[in-house]
């Protein structure tokens, strides 16, 4: 398989994720779409690691997975806090930082 196919696929997945972040209103789904974008980046990193025959790209992808896990944990914590405070679960309604 040519590496180019993987890069094209990663570009399209990133695009779908960006579209989801821009159009969806449920913060849970926005987080899921952020995961899509991070995974597209991961796919590109692994593809380029294969192209250059260098495993540093795979280590970088592993670190990206760690960052994604942290982002999920904090994001879900904020969503649970929103639910506890009876705020609307909707990114359009949430326009203030003060809780």
């Amino acid at each position, binding site marked *: 398989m040519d590496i180019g196919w993987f890069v094209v696929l990663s570009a399209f997945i990133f695009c779908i994720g960006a*579209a989801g972040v821009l159009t969806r209103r449920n913060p*849970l789904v926005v987080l899921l779409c952020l995961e899509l974008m991070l995974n597209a980046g991961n796919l590109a990193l692994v593809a380029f690691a294969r192209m250059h*025959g260098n495993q540093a790209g795979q280590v970088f992808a592993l670190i990206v997975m760690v960052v994604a896990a942290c982002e999920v944990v904090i994001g879900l*914590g904020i969503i649970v806090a929103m639910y506890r405070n009876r705020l609307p679960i909707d990114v359009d309604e949430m326009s203030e930082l003060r809780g």
Partner: protein
Amino acid sequence: MWFEQFLFFVTAIGALGGALGVVMLRNPFYSVLALVVHLLALAVLFLLLRAEFLAAAQVVVYASAVMVLYVFVVAYIGGADEPLRPEGGPLATFGPLFAAALAIELSIAVLGTGLEAVDTRGADIGPDFGAPGQIGALLLRRFLVPFEGASFLLLMAAVGAVVLARRRRGLEA
């Protein structure tokens, strides 16, 4: 060789379908399940790219642990169907517009300039490329500082999640 191409196209369709499912499905619970399909397809793609350890980590950590967290939170806050946007504010019009612009731009980049530079099968690699031992040696020798930084980041995220999600009124409430 044909089997590799067949596998690539099947899993690429799975990954794209999963991604579209995440964005299109109204119920957040189904979105989470679509993301699981997407992540499993990506793990197969990682295997095709000879990233064995990363594929295993993708399935064990991402498609299992992180997604279980999502399922719990969806069950906790109630996975109600998202209502359709009542009538368009500025976000309702500009969001899809911007997404479409990004798609067109990426298509032009893919179709127009071509990807001659990456149309290779990749460098020659040994049989243990991407094996756990190789990745572990890299993490503990060349990338020790990012490795420790990642562990510190995970610790901070765990503490932060506890602080964010705890109940406000004392311990008994």
